[in-house]
């Protein structure tokens, strides 16, 4: 698969328009490609190079630096189990072993049905809730082995789709800057000092609704 489709291309252009330099859109566009295909396809990187006026080698250089970008298909559900320090000392490694055993795969691999991939990951900022994990970057705090099995069973039977979209989808709400409200890109090629910096302070108009 594939270059960005027409809908995503429109989104890509909207994203690009927000940056003073288009190369800045590289990571957002890689996310978009991963949302489309579940991973970042070679063709998609070439497409992104065209859109950001870079070379495919540069896009790959960026893409391969960040571990969230998968360049091969992964399971529909990416199960990221934290084994970093707070989780480690609170049972994270045991949770990982349980997950490996119950899904029958090792960390880093995908179940034969293509549903689940397990990863042994670094701290996911839920340290006080150890042990914890993420499924497609949705959190599960202080999760026991039984709770883990329950969630997996739900996902297997097609449940929890509202809560957990397929791998590749992060925020389901996107930012949109309305054209009539946009302040516009601050072009590094040089804009003058913002007017408010030199202008005398103006109090917000009375009665402005808080």
């Amino acid at each position, binding site marked *: 698969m594939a270059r960005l489709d027409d809908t995503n291309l429109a989104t890509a252009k909207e994203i690009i328009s927000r940056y003073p330099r288009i190369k800045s859109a590289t990571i957002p566009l890689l996310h978009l490609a991963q949302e489309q295909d579940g991973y970042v396809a070679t063709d998609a*990187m070439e497409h992104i190079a065209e859109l950001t006026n*870079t*070379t495919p*080698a540069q896009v*790959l250089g960026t893409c*391969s630096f960040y571990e969230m970008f998968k360049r091969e298909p992964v399971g529909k559900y990416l199960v990221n189990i934290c084994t970093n320090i707070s989780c480690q000392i609170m049972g994270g490694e045991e949770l990982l072993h349980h997950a490996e055993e119950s899904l029958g795969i090792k960390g880093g691999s995908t179940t034969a049905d293509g549903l689940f991939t397990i990863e042994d990951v670094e701290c996911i900022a839920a340290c006080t809730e150890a042990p914890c994990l993420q499924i497609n970057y949705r959190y599960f705090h202080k999760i026991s082995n039984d709770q883990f099995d329950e969630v997996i069973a739900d996902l297997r039977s097609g449940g929890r789709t509202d809560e957990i979209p397929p791998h590749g989808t992060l925020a389901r709400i996107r930012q949109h800057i309305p054209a009539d409200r946009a302040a516009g890109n601050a072009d590094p090629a040089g804009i003058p000092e913002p007017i408010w910096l030199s202008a005398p302070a103006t109090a917000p108009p009375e009665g402005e609704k808080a």
Partner: protein
Amino acid sequence: MPEAPAETAVAITVNGKAIAARPGELVIDAAERNGVYIPRFCYHHRMEPVGMCRMCLVEVDTGRGMALQPSCMLTVAPDMVVETESPVAKKAQDGILEFLLINHPLDCPVCDKGGECPLQDHTVAFGPGESRFVEEKRHYEKPISISENVYLDRERCILCDRCTRFAKDVAGDTLIHFQDRGNGTQINTFPDHPFASYFSGNTVQICPVGALTAKPYRFKARPWDLDVVESTCTDCAVGCRIVIDGSRNEVLRYAGVDSDPVNWSWLCDKGRFGFEKVGADARLSAPLVKETNGDLVETRWADALTQAARAIKAGLDKNGPGGTAIIGGAHLTNESAYAWAKLAKGVIGTDNVDAQLGDGLPAAMVAGMARATIDEACVAGGTLLVIGSDPKDELAVLFLRIRDAVTLHKTTVVELSPRATSLSEIAAHSLRSVPGAVHELVNQIIAGEGDLAPVRAALANDHLTVLLGRGSMAESAEATVAAAAALLAAFPNVKFLSGLRRANVHGALDLGLTPGFLPGRVTLDDGRAWFTEAWDTVPAEPGLDAAGILAAAADGRIDTLILLGADPLADFPDRELATRGLKGARTVIAVETLLNSSSAFAHIVLPAAGAAEVDGTTTNIEGRVSTVRQKVTPPGTARPDWMIAAELAFRLGADLNITDAASAWAEIERLSAAHAGMTAEALGNEPDGLIVGRTEPDVERPAMVSFSAPAFEAPAVDAYSLRLVTTRRLYDQGTLVSHSPSLAGLAVSGSLLANPTDLDRLGVAPSGNVKVSSPRGAITAAVEPDATVPPGTVVLAWNQGDPSPNALIDAAAPVTEVRLETTS
């Protein structure tokens, strides 16, 4: 390098010694200039520092106590105290070396870099004897091919970012890049996007370990077996300084020398890997003469020279001196060019001599215009106007210098060209000119109305240089000359950098291998008295240029046509005329290193010594004279061109008084107005070379020509036709590339590029073959729609095999109008 003047120096202390650093200088450079070498891997003084290998860490006190700092990223500041060998600095440096070695394979004995590897050297000098690393090293597939000529061994890579910085920042070909992260970081290309760069070989040269190696050199030699001479590359007219590495009478590789005014250590791959032609099997090693059955068969020099002399004499008797003509000579050394000029003009007495093949610019202009150096053309904040050349394809390393000037030093590039070139992307203004009418665009810019006002403003720069070449062969040079004249009138401070591409075309022109001129940029008339004294005789009238010679030969007016390393059939713009001319000459003598397409017409072939086989000098686009050196003996009995000229002179009853390159140079220095003062000793003192015409000639020498141009009116655009534009590629199907195995595969065949709207309008299918016809002839070519080609024009590359655009061009016509028809 000269010491910085005391008042601007920055006083710092390095290892207890007071040092006068230059303002803005990096500590690593200031220390090195003062004899303290700080070890390094990532730093390369021709690229922006990145400070990532950390090898150059030193202790520095800038007033807040000693701290470890990478000296490659630190600019000197007053009163800075630097310790490069304190216990802390040593601890850091030794630690880095150990870190670099833990994953580095121990394959030095089979590594091409072994023996000249900074990592190996530092390890031997400072490194720990025994490795404390007992773990398994990193493993990658050993070497992978990342381009036609470069292998990458990722196990050896120390991730210094040199090759990747070169690719991105210097060459602008960001095709190799860091991939992955941390300990798994590697250099690689994108899948199926090889490192196809004209400059890929430079990465091999700057790699501080053996991670990048050149395929043509692989396992060829060990550095300690090599012996080395410093020379100049003669593949194009940039004149990059090189070292020639060889062993046992074989050239094994070229490497760039860091010549500050010229190539900064860079080379293009054509120059770097073109050394393979030196020892090519096909090299001519004995004279050949044509038998009655038409075959060329080997003969002895004595017989070949006697035959040649007899032919010249017979011509002299029948038609006078003008019956002998010479085309070519732009690949010769200055010394050989001078010998041939002396033979032609001072012995035979003919002025029908032209080193250019109708593909250059008038000698009067090249010799007479105010010339700029590359440094002047690339000066920070200056403006470079480019007309007629695509430097990346024609003068590759000049492109790197221009790119550097634009990207780092705010030089403004304005490009006027009938189609987009490699400069279009970095040019501040890239304007399309009508083929054959670039002077009209120049006049509009000078008028500076409307949209062109900013372009005019860009040209109105104290430092305005025009890079002036001959881009398209499908138009005459007149428009370019007129454009130059208009610029000179409008901007009197303008200087010119020649964009002519043949290796020593500038030397050949300077030394009189061009009609109307004598050595030293003087006209026949101005130089007659001086040279009559030195040479005995000087031609009475200006002679014919290449087009004139071929036309005269076609008419039977040339008895003996000498091709001095020239292939008119391939290189003269008008193939029809070239063919008639070669057929029409009674005797064709080819002085050559390799047979070429015109050799079939030769009656006598004299084998010449080529690059790396002769001593002497060459002159680059700036007029810079630098030395070339012999590294190996020529094949068989091939001999230097000057010697062939001297032997012919002898058989014509004259003595050129040239016994070696040095004696030729001494005579040039003594006689030429432009070369006065450039003694062998002066040249020897200046490895970067000296510039012709910049030394004050002594008063009695003749005056050098200055530039004036005739008026020119371009023909009106014919709405029914398309104007042909020809372009060049670095890798063509010319003789030199074809005989360098590592390059031959890089040449692609040409197709006809046309604007899709034109194809649509003409009802021509946008794929498949088209018939292209001009009043001169017709060819069939594969057509490719290309929206960057301006409507009304079509583009065909030169010398990319058949179809060749020179079948369409009439040398006498100012432009070439063609029509397209779909073939079935």
